[in-house]
């Protein structure tokens, strides 16, 4: 009786070791707040633990976990409607990994990235979701399609439209300046 319970916990612990970074990046792409992203990852694994009897039925753990985390983070954002911590570009420069460059360049680059992220938030929901998930390097187009429960061609189409719309927004701003 106790052995399957112990096995399930060991399995969840292994999943934590293997996928927590990926889930953190998925959550961070939406929250852009380290503490909120970590909360989402913890909540994801708590749900996994709650439904550990279904672990044997799961075919692709990565897709399954990303889908749970994705739903949680969208729900959290819908409820909170809080301003991301990294709207402040100094925070973005602190959080996001940066190459070796001067402090001044770092701030300018972070400011530019923060601006692009704000423009991403203005995109339509479907295009925005695909663009944010495509940013997570561990996820392929097929996996994004599985997470969003659609086809791979739809994902490619949405991704193209999102990038195109984003580029247009940036060009318009560039022509205005």
């Amino acid at each position, binding site marked *: 009786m106790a052995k399957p*319970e112990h096995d399930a916990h060991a399995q969840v612990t292994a999943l934590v070791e293997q996928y927590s*970074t990926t889930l953190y*990046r998925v959550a961070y792409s939406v929250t852009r707040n380290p503490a909120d992203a970590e909360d989402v*990852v913890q909540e994801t694994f708590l749900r996994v633990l709650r439904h550990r009897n279904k672990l044997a039925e799961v075919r692709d753990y990565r897709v399954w976990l990303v889908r749970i985390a994705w739903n949680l983070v969208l729900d959290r954002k819908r409820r909170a409607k809080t301003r991301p911590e990294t709207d402040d570009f100094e925070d973005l420069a602190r959080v*996001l990994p940066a190459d070796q460059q001067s402090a001044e360049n770092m701030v300018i680059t972070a400011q530019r990235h923060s601006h*692009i992220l704000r423009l991403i938030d203005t995109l339509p929901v479907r295009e925005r979701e695909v663009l944010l998930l495509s940013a997570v390097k561990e996820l392929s187009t097929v996996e994004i399609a599985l997470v969003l429960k659609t086809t791979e061609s739809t994902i490619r189409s949405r991704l193209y439209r999102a990038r195109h719309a984003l580029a247009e927004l*940036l060009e318009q701003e560039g022509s205005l300046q």
Partner: protein
Amino acid sequence: MNIQSEIDETLRRLGSAEPPSGLERRINRRLQIPRSRFSSTRIWAACALAACLALSAIALNPVWRGLVFHTHAHLQSTQSTRTIDPPRVAAPAPGGFGAASAVHVPDQPVPVQPTPVNQGRGRSRSGRAVLPNGTLAPLPRGVAAPHTPPPAAPVPDSTQ
């Protein structure tokens, strides 16, 4: 840097954010809490504690102690000193079929004597005691009874 490169760079940085150190350790520590909350060891410990508390309450409370232990001790002492006889069947009494047959039944019907009423003793029909002189006993205080005034004396007719 052109626009597409900027977008790529922004998405690359966003999607490669490094989690704070010790993330896995904190998650695993949090996952331990629900498991230990309902573990069988804790349930057994809680049951044992509850049983100990109940026994202590019974042992310390004199009323409960008497209820629980006195009956048991009384039964034990009774059983040790007495032996319970096996049930016996009592033979019927001669000339009858039980206790009711012992009542004497006269051969002839007994005439009913009229009960004297208001003979100076006992109670009248009104429920009030009758004194030896034939009058009713006064009502106790606080008891209301209809009072009939005595008939008035005839008044001589002045017109005649």
